[in-house]
């Protein structure tokens, strides 16, 4: 059940691909074998904004996020129905190459997962395999600067990435994703394995990044959703309960379940 109280702010559903939207979800259903993890979810993800997906564990928010760049393809028995429109094309269309989807829609994972290689190679590898032929030195520097990591690592680019701290590793993973110049950046609880200072670093970073990228973040941390996001989707048991501007969700939600959740009365 979805209620929109403020249609002037929200992009409409069921209209042709809105110029302001980076991604449009229309009646998306996701199944794991016989279990339905996401039910009839529809909303639009706006360009150059941060959209947060919140909800209790097991509500399907990570599943939904992973469907946005077809990472669910690697889960056996996973099946996606409905339309996920990206640049006027259904991400799950017959002619769509998932490799191409993932190149254009980047992802940062819950636990920092740098390659066991040098800092430099962590960033340069993605562009290299995708046929990037300009100077990778510049690209590495640019990406690290965008991820606010350059000053900390510029003197040891050829050291192993595994020697970095957890927070630095996560920023490296963000830099690695940014080096592909994705149109959308998906973040799956990017701060859950980090300490508060590293978390603050990453949140600051997200503010800067949204000028150039569209960000979708899944988070367990409601304060984080309230702090960083422009739009918030609240999910429960695979249903989208409410989608609205973040301020609205956290101050005057229209559904009682949302209010109970964001005020910490359950979940």
């Amino acid at each position, binding site marked *: 059940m979805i209620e929109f109280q403020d249609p002037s702010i929200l992009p409409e559903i069921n209209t042709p691909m809105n110029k302001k939207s980076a991604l449009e979800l229309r009646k998306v259903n996701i199944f794991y074998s016989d279990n339905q993890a996401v039910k009839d979810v529809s909303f639009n993800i706006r360009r150059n904004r941060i959209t947060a997906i919140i909800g209790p564990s097991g509500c399907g928010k990570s599943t939904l996020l992973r469907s946005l760049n077809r*990472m669910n393809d690697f889960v056996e028995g996973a099946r996606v129905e409905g339309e996920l429109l990206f640049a006027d094309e259904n991400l799950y269309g017959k002619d769509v190459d998932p490799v191409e989807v993932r*190149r254009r829609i980047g992802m940062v994972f819950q636990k920092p997962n740098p*390659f*066991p290689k040098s800092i430099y190679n962590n960033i340069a*590898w993605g562009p290299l395999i995708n046929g990037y032929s300009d100077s990778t030195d510049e690209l590495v520097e640019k990406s690290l600067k965008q991820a606010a990591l350059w000053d900390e690592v510029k003197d040891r680019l050829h050291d192993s990435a595994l020697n970095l701290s957890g927070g630095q590793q996560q920023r490296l993973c963000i830099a690695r994703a940014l080096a592909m110049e994705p149109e959308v950046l998906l973040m799956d609880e990017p701060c859950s394995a980090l300490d508060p200072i590293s978390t603050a670093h990453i949140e600051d970073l997200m503010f800067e990044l949204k000028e150039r990228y569209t960000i979708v973040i899944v988070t367990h941390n409601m304060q984080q959703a309230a702090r960083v996001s422009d739009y918030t989707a609240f999910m429960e048991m695979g249903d989208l309960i409410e989608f609205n501007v973040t301020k609205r969700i956290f101050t005057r939600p229209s559904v009682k379940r949302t209010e109970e959740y964001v005020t910490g009365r359950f979940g």
Partner: protein
Amino acid sequence: MSFSSESESISLARRHRKAKLFSMFCGMVTWSGVVLLAVLLYQVSIDGFRWLDWQFIDSFPSRFPERAGIKSALVGTIWLISLVALISIPVGVCTALYLEEFAGKGKISKIIEVNIANLAGVPSIVYGILGLAIFVRYMALERSLVSGALTMSLLILPVIIIASREAIKTVPMSIRYAAYSLGATKWQTAWAHVLPASFPGIMTGVILALSRAIGETAPLIMIGALTFVAFLPEGPMDSFTALPIQIYNWVSRPQQEFHELAAAGIIILLSVLLLMNATAIYIRNKTERRLK
């Protein structure tokens, strides 16, 4: 003040005693293996040491013990092991990579998996018979190094495949996902990340497998490696002998001197083995450090 009541402390003492007893038992079992090996090495060294000189390494076999040497067998073994490595490593590692990364997890791969595990337990003589029938006779490769190497490769392939699969399995999924999320294909991910990350483990399996191959005798006898070779193989199609065959040949002679020559041959065989293992462990440690 005590943390526990009396009855608890008694049972705790008993548990500690049990733990100590068990660790002592394990230690004993471990050392009994080491001691046995040491005795064996000692015996072999006593018997063979006086024959060990350059003349022994640089001479062909002979009817006269003082002129007999191990040159053709040593060179044959080096040829054989090099060929085996050349054949079995690419085939084994690619098979493991295919089974782990590309093949579905359906019934067929289960069947293949069980079969490979079974093949690892097949007696080596059976591989010898197979090699004789297929490589020597059917493919008419004769009693050549290639026949021997192919047979030996078949023998150790299951070991390499199983060890490589285990090594590939230990590569965390998160690394694969990271690569996929950058728009990498399965092949690019496997080649650039999975293989390098599992390299140390694969090397360990390969070392163990090649060590087994270097000491195997039965399949070589079966495919007809010669026992008296007074020339060096110059190419993979030449006939050959190998260290274990030469040792076997000497042991089966009645004269005491030849038994001692066999002991000297065993020392050479063990040295080659040790050298190979040391090199491989060195390579493994180096790559392991680079990854960390």
